């Protein structure tokens, strides 16, 4: 698409008076409309390409609802919402940049383009923080994922208990568990809490991670470790609610040693007053053994969708950087702003796709 925008900026080799009119167009308006039409057709191809991933998503969510409900626990609703706002804001500045270009407001144009670019930077940084939180818990795409099973056995038995603990803990604590500290939205119960250990990338969280280490070290056989962790989970339920929230999830109480292992989780979760009983809490043991082997699929789809989208954000940022350079040279004005408009269309599409990705990935119910 870069070259398409370059093309609309093609000064051509004809003998027309308009400096930006390519030789095979008769009027600037014809050239402008052609460029826009071309970009819209290109956007249609983008929609269908992402559509393949949405199709895969729909089929796997439809067939493995509980697996998705479980895996979604690793995602952070508030980070997702924050990123939505960031991207929407950058869409606003992009649309404003087009207006500035149309009105010949050079400084405003450059400012708005830079703001849009910074929106892209902000989005990618937040995405990076989110990715890091996943990677800290071995939630990689594909065979490297902690939940990956091979021949009926976990491929990474050493990583699996941590990942289970991480997601079980989050599913019990709800998004308050993970979203609190960073999210700007106001209705966070954990907002003023001094502790939010499970916040991705937080130091406190690392401590929790370490404290869980003996569990897997002590219990070598992963089967045992799984059962052990799972039996710890209902304790958290009771700690949080004071009473069993859902009879079906309750298992016999764990031993004191187990309690110790999960102290950090309980302490921290105990601070949280759960805002929502609307979410069905799915824990590792609620999944059938067959479903447990499929959890990694959720992460495969998550990384493919957000990864391809992130790649498009990066491409859009390159486009906008190019527009900034051109704008600084004073290329754009009332008569010639097609590249800003067409580059803007691309940026808005990236936003548009995120508008659908966000509820589908982060707001699973």
């Amino acid at each position, binding site marked *: 698409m870069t070259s398409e925008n370059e093309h609309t900026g093609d000064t051509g080799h004809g003998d027309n008076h308009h400096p930006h009119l390519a030789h095979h*167009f*008769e009027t*600037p*308006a*014809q050239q402008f*409309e052609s460029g*826009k*039409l071309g970009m*819209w*057709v290109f*956007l*249609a191809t983008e*929609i*269908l390409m992402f*559509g*393949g991933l949405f*199709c895969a998503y*729909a*089929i796997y969510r*439809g*067939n493995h*609802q*509980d697996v998705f*409900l479980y895996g979604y626990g690793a995602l952070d609703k508030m980070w997702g*919402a924050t990123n939505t*706002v960031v991207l*929407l*804001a950058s*869409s*606003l500045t992009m*649309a*404003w940049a*087009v*207006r500035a270009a*149309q009105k010949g407001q050079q400084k405003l144009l450059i400012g708005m383009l830079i703001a849009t670019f910074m929106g892209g930077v902000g989005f990618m940084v937040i995405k990076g923080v989110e990715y890091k939180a996943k990677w800290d818990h071995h939630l990689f795409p594909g065979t490297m994922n902690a939940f990956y099973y091979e021949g009926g056995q976990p491929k990474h038995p050493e990583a699996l208990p941590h990942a289970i603990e991480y997601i079980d803990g989050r599913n019990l604590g709800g998004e308050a568990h993970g979203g609190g500290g960073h999210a700007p*939205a106001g*209705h966070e119960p954990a907002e003023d809490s001094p502790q939010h250990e499970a916040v991705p990338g937080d130091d406190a969280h690392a401590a929790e991670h370490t404290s869980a280490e003996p569990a897997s070290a002590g219990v070598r056989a992963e089967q045992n470790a799984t059962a052990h962790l799972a039996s710890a989970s209902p304790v958290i339920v009771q700690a949080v609610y004071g009473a069993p929230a859902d009879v*079906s999830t309750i298992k016999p109480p764990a031993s004191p040693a187990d309690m110790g292992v999960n102290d950090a989780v309980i302490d921290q979760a105990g601070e949280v007053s759960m805002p*929502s009983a*609307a*979410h*069905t809490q799915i824990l590792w043991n609620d999944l*059938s*053994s*067959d479903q447990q082997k499929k959890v990694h699929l959720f992460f495969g789809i998550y990384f493919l969708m957000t990864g391809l989208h992130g790649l498009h954000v990066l491409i859009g940022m390159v486009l906008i950087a190019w527009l900034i350079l051109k704008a600084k040279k004073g290329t754009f004005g009332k008569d010639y*702003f*097609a590249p800003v408009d067409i580059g*803007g*269309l691309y940026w*808005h*599409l990236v*936003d*548009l796709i995120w*508008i*659908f990705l*966000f*509820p*589908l990935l982060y*707001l699973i*119910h």
Partner: protein
Amino acid sequence: MSHAHTNDDHGMGHVSPIWMLLGVFALLIFFTVLTVAVTYVDLGPANIWVALAVAVVKGALVGLYFMHLRYDSPFNSLILVSAFLFLAVFIGLALMDTGEYQSNIAPPDSVRPNSG
């Protein structure tokens, strides 16, 4: 129907007023808050459809105003709509099929313990 290049009578693009840009942005933020807020309400299987409906409204706002579709050649809107239409055909038929045969291939122990 004819788009022969001589009929470009509407000049070069529509200049959006600032109040409109800000108004659309405010609506988009409102819908973002709404879609997050609605996850705290259990609507059963309707939750996903509410979330998608809100996404469609947001997408339409971006398309109509930020992407100027409302003031643009209707053909550009047609391109966008047909992209979604073909996508719906693709996802719809594939989903229908897997829905039909899934019960034949799923192992018995994958019966859902509780429905989300």
